[in-house]
Structures are given as C-alpha cells and as structure tokens.
C-alpha cells in the first residue's frame, strides 16, 4: 500500500481569458522512504499538482476537475476543509523554493517553528519550544537557543532553508513536498541542503515529492521521476532507465539542457588583446562604516574572438566586476585599457562615444528592456544615436539585426511584454550588437530563462561571437553553461580571482581549494 496514491488528477483554472488546463490526468504514487521527483519547466503544472492535493491552490479560479488522492485511507480531494487542515503541516508538510518569501518576515523564527506543533498536538509552548530547539540542532543550526527569537532576515539563504525544513518536520509528517527547495541557493549550499534532506528522509522513513526544473539536481536523490509538460505527464521511470533511454522528445530536451557537455572546438588562439584589466578594485562603503570589497585586485586580459567565463557564487563580485569593466560602476582603483585608452580616467562625457564599443547583456530580459519601446525603437535608438545608420536605411539595419538574432521580421512593431523571456533576451542581444561593439559583457544572460530556452540562446551567442568577431565576458554561476561556452575561465570568490585558466584544463585539474569545492558541488547527470 503506497503512502500516497494519486489517480487521474486534473486541475483547471477558469480565468477571464478562458480555461487553463494546469494539470491533466496525472497519476503517481509515493511510498514511505521513497523520493518521487516531478520535473518540468515553469508552467508545466508540477507545483499546482502538489499544492492542489493540500487545497493550497486558490479556488476560484482553480478547480479540481477529477481525480483521487488516497492518503492514509482517505481521499484528500474529498476532505472537508477542516479535515484537510488537520492533514496539512501534520501528516503532509511542504518546503518551498524561496525561504525568504515563504517565511513570515514579521514573526520570529521560533514562533513560526512552533506553530505546527501548537496547532496539531496538544502541547504546551514550553514543550514545543524544547522540541523546536532539538530539531534546529538536527538541521544544523548552531546556537539554536540564542537564535530562537531571531527574524528571517537575520539569516542567510541556506540557513533559512534549514529552518524551513525544520518547520516542515516538526509535527513529524509522513510525506514531505519539496517545491524547488534548492533553486534559490548557491551550488555549494544546494549540495548541503540536498544531503540534509536525504539524511532526514532515511532517518524518519519519509516519503518525499521533490519538484524541480533541473534533472541533474534530482538525478542522485530520486527513486522515480515524472516528467511533466503543459500539465501532462509525458514520461516516467527510474532515473537510470530514463537517462539512458529517454522516450519523449521533451525529456530529451530537458536532458540536453542538463547535460551540456563541453565546447565543441576551441578556435585557433588569436593573441590579440582587446581589453586589459590591471589591479581592478571596486569597493563600496556599507552602513556602519564597513567597506565591502566587491572586487578586490582582479587582473585579466581579454583577447579577440574569445569567450572568457567569470564564475562565482552570489556575492562573489562577478556582476560588479562586469559593470566595473564597462564603467557602469566607477572602480575604486586599477586600470581598464581598451585599445590604447585608459577608461578609468575618463569622465562621463569623454566616455560616452567609447561606450558603443563596450556593450552589456543583462540577466533579466523583463527588466532590461524599456516596456514602452517597440522592438524597432529599441534597436533603432543606438543606430541613430551613434549615427551608424542613415534615416533611410535604419529600417533595413534593424531588420538585419532581427535576422541576426533570430527574431521574426513581422515582430518589428511589437512591444517587449508581448514576447516570451527567450525572445526578449534576443531583443536585448540585438540591442547590444546594434552599436557593433568589440567587447560584450553578458551577466547571467540565461539564468532567468526556462530550462529548454538557454540552449538556444547559448548557441545564438556562440554563433554571434564567431560571426562578428566579438570578445565576450560571460558571467555565470552555472558551471555547466560556462563549460559549454567558454574558452577560458576565471573563478571569483569574495571579490578575488582565485584561479584562472583554459576551461578544460581547469575542469581536469582545479588548483585552488575553492574551485575544487565548487566543481564537486555542481550536480551532474553522468
């Protein structure tokens, strides 16, 4: 008898613009001590599927159209709200993607931690507190007694997720629903949290439903994998068979996204330096008189037609490094030389004509495009401003740019909000190319995109670098992407360059301890 057995679940959303079939006839089961992974892109219905079991999908507009969910001898979908409440947080608990938004910022952690116990067990506050403290120690929070009264914002992301896990476990549930629990975390932290969940699962014989967009993350922990697309299960199976022999084209696409491999053939080395950075420092003064050394003494040279990866975790200073090179942030010290010109000494008006040689592609294609400008406006603006196109051929040039980045010509009058994330990123790339730059800094250009989209964008970037003889600095936290794209890699840790070298050499023999840790923590499929 399975712990949870879901049959034929359908959840639709009845909105003003029609019916959205978020979940269509999904069936699965989970046993005690077993992990079921549900994998799919955003909008595939993987989260709705889980939350609808607990009545946590807003209804209306949501409605459960059909299905059964047997749990502990009862059908969850037919429980009265009161009975369902007695199951939530008690027998079935959830942890969510971003503990920052999922923990109440107005209540202390201790208070939130005790709540499920106080609600579902007849225990005194004192007993609840004792149990909560014990559990905090178990999930690896040192000095729990002192931190009991602290608020969520006083903890780091990883610590918050530990608290979240403790909160889910406190009433000793039988089933844990984990919705992308590591997506918001750095790789090294992600590895720790995954390990923690596995340990606890083994100790308590928990059934776990692990929702993720990344096959590589679930590869090691899942007993079964469910692949969902557009509300339907397109494929299911044990990880090993699924990875070895994927049946559905969508599964193959997902696999390809996680199994990116290495760069095809490195181009013949051209040792023509384009930009030279020497002893670059960018320091900020933080409240309390502290100094944040976001970038601390970094030197590098970028050669023509080369892709240099800059890798680091959040807070490593990789974004600041990119912006300092482009003089979007004024460096504190050091030099940035483009051709024969020292950029750090120029004032804004002297810099302006040079800016067209240095362009940037941003992470969030939603925020990096002016929502009130059409594709034509966005692409024509740099052409006109730098007089790269005459009045007559500006349309032709915009169309050429659109062809270049793979946008349909018919979309020229459309506005950013009418496009998907991947298409928007193409517009942003087109805008960066419009000024015919020599150097482009791409700051996590694919990390805001859905799983199967990055591959297309990365291939576009590779093609454009070759076609336009660009030099690219590619900033990313994702090691597999960097390996796929970059000729050389610079590893950044707390503002300092800890290691740099040719990509494959670095992967084969990482020198610095931090690089080794980073490479080991990255989830891998093979």
């Amino acid at each position, binding site marked *: 008898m399975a712990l949870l057995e879901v049959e034929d679940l359908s959840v639709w959303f009845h909105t003003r613009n029609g019916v959205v079939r978020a979940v269509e006839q999904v069936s699965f089961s989970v046993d005690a001590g077993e992990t079921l992974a549900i994998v799919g892109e955003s909008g595939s219905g993987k989260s709705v599927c889980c939350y609808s079991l607990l009545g946590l999908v807003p209804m209306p507009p949501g409605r459960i159209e059909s299905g059964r969910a047997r749990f502990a001898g009862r059908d969850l979908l037919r429980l009265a709200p009161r009975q369902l409440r007695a199951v939530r947080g008690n027998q079935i608990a959830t942890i969510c993607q971003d503990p920052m938004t999922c923990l109440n910022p107005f209540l202390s952690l201790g208070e939130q931690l005790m709540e499920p116990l106080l609600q579902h067990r007849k225990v005194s506050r004192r007993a609840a507190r004792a149990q909560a403290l014990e559990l905090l120690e178990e999930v690896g929070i040192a000095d729990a007694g002192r931190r009991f009264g602290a608020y969520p914002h006083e903890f780091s992301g990883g610590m918050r997720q530990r608290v979240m896990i403790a909160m889910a476990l406190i009433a000793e549930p039988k089933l844990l629903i984990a919705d992308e629990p590591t997506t918001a975390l750095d790789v090294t932290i992600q590895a720790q949290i995954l390990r923690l969940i596995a340990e606890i699962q083994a100790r308590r014989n928990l059934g776990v439903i692990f929702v993720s967009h990344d096959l590589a993350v679930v590869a090691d922990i899942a007993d079964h994998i469910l692949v969902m697309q557009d509300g339907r299960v397109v494929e299911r199976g044990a990880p090993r068979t699924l990875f070895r022999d994927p049946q559905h084209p969508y599964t193959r696409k997902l696999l390809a996204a996680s199994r990116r491999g290495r760069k095809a053939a490195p181009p013949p080395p051209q040792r023509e330096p384009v930009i030279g950075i020497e002893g670059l420092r960018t320091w900020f003064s933080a409240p309390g008189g502290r100094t944040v050394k976001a970038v601390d003494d970094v030197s590098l040279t970028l050669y023509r037609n080369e892709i240099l990866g800059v890798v680091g975790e959040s807070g490593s200073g990789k974004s600041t490094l990119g*912006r300092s090179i482009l003089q979007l942030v004024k460096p504190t010290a050091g030099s940035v030389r483009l051709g024969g010109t020292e950029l750090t000494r120029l004032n804004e008006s002297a810099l*302006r004509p040079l800016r*067209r040689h240095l362009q940037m592609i941003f992470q969030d294609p939603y*925020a990096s495009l002016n*929502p*009130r400008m059409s594709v034509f406006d966005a692409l024509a*603006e740099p052409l006109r*401003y730098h007089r790269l196109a005459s009045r007559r051929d500006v349309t032709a040039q915009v169309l050429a740019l659109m062809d270049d980045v793979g946008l349909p010509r*018919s979309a020229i009058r*459309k506005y950013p909000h009418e496009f998907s994330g991947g298409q928007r990123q193409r517009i942003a790339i087109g805008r960066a190319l419009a000024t015919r730059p020599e150097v482009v800094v791409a700051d996590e250009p694919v990390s805001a995109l859905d799983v199967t989209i990055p591959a297309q964008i990365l291939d576009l970037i590779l093609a454009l670098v070759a076609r336009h003889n660009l030099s690219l600095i590619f900033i990313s936290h994702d090691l597999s992407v960097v390996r796929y794209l970059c000729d050389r890699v610079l590893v950044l840790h707390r503002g300092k360059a800890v290691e740099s070298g040719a990509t494959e050499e670095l992967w084969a023999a990482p020198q610095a301890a931090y690089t080794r840790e980073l490479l080991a923590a990255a989830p891998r499929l093979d």
Partner: protein
Amino acid sequence: MTGDPLAQAERGVSLWRDAWLRLRRNRLAVAGGLMLILLCALALLTPWIAPYDYKAQDLALGAAPPSAAHWLGTDTLGRDLLTHVLWGGRISFAVGFVATAVALAIGVLYGTVAGYVGGRVDAVMMRLVDILYALPFMIFIILLMVIFGRNLVLLFLAIGAVEWLTMARIVRGQVQALKQQEFIEAAVSLGLSRWTIIRRHLIPNTLGPVIVYTTLTIPSVMLLEAFLSFLGLGIQPPASSWGLLISYGAETMEEYPWLLIFPGLALSLTLFSLNFLGDGLRDALDPRIAKD
C-alpha cells in the same frame, strides 16, 4: 519577395493601448469618465445653457421647491438653483484643474530632479518636503485667505502648493525605482546622454502613476476649495461655488432641504466620477497587472 517587408509586420500592442483596453472593460471607470465629460461640458457651456440669468432674482417667489420652471427649485431670494449650481460647477472645475496643474508642474519637476540626481541633493530636497509635510497646512491656507483676502489666484496657488508634495514623492519614488532598472543601465551603456535617457526612458515610464495621481488629486483639490468656501474663506459671493452653496443650504436645510441636497449631489457626483476613473486608471496602468 516583393514590396516593403514592414507591410506584413504585425501591429504591436503598446502598454498604453493595453491599459486602454483594460480600462474599457471597467464599467465603473467608463461611467465615471463619461459622467466627467458630461459635467465638464456643462461647466464649459454654462453661459449659454443656464436657464436663467445669474443675477436674476424673484423676491416674490422666494424659496420654492423644484418645479417645471425651476428644475432644482429656487433659493430664498428666488434665484434659480440650477443656474447657480452650473455656475458654481464652473468655478469648482476651474479650481480643480488649475490647482492640480500647479501641483503637477511643481511636483513632477521637483520629484524628477530629486530622484534622478540622487545623493546629497536628493536628501536635502526630500528633507524639505518632510518639513513641509509636518506643517499644519490647512491652517496656513486659512491664514493666507484671511490675511490676503479671498483671491482666486491665491487660492489656486495655495492649494497647488499643498498638493505638490505628494506628487513630488510619488514621482521621486518612481524615478528612483526606474533608475535601478536594467534598461536604464542599458541606456547608459549605449552611451546615451543624460537628457536622452530622461526624455526617452524615464519620463514615459513615470507617466502612468502621474496620470493616476493627477486624476485622484483633482477631487481632493475640489474638496479643499469647497471646504474653504464652506468656511467662508474661499470663493466669495456674488461668485458661486458648490462649497458656498452647500454652506448656504446647510443654514436653511430645515425649511428648504433642496438647497442643500442638489449642490451636495453635484459635488458628490463629480467626486465619485473622478475617483472611479482614477481607481480604474490605477488598475489599468498598474505594471504588476500588465505583466501577466
């Protein structure tokens, strides 16, 4: 392939069009907008459509309830109430629009400068706004009106001078939020000049909230004028405004309730229309809704 490749280009839907479509679906806002157009038209056309002369009295008739000759009745001097409500509406609308324009001009300029320049300039400018906020402004306006006489221009300036504070804050907040947006950074890295960035990237994106707040400022300005006139500090007889009519009606409401009710209705109807339109605009222009 023949002809202009743009010929088959799909027509894009700009955010403005999008907002307009959303606004059109909001029945209350549409009703408010239509009512407002009607009221504005009445106010503009008053000199031609008012049924009686503004100064015409009929002492023999005195205060009479609504009738076929006087749709809204007459006051104690036998003056036609409809005529006076129409003329009063002219003044109320004029005050509403002019004072709001004053607030708009000062507020947007001040807010944009503070938000865009930032740093110490911003700190000083906003400090000043904070101080002004803490002043008992109502009292200052009353004082101004008492001391310098009931002057219409002064009334505009005084009300505008109070209302610009919130506008400045809203615009500054908006500009600050926009400045953090990556598309502004993108514009900087394209090498655009400051002025181009302000003109092409900042202002079009602050316009939404500014329009919304403007629509909501007009009713509060009209309210303020009515309030001052009610106290006898705003518009002076023989000129008329809704606040004055209400004040007069309140004195005689026991015997002649229509003298209170109809001017009150006119004021409330206008405020309703403006507020519903403003709310509708806010919902239509809210970028968070526009995202999905």
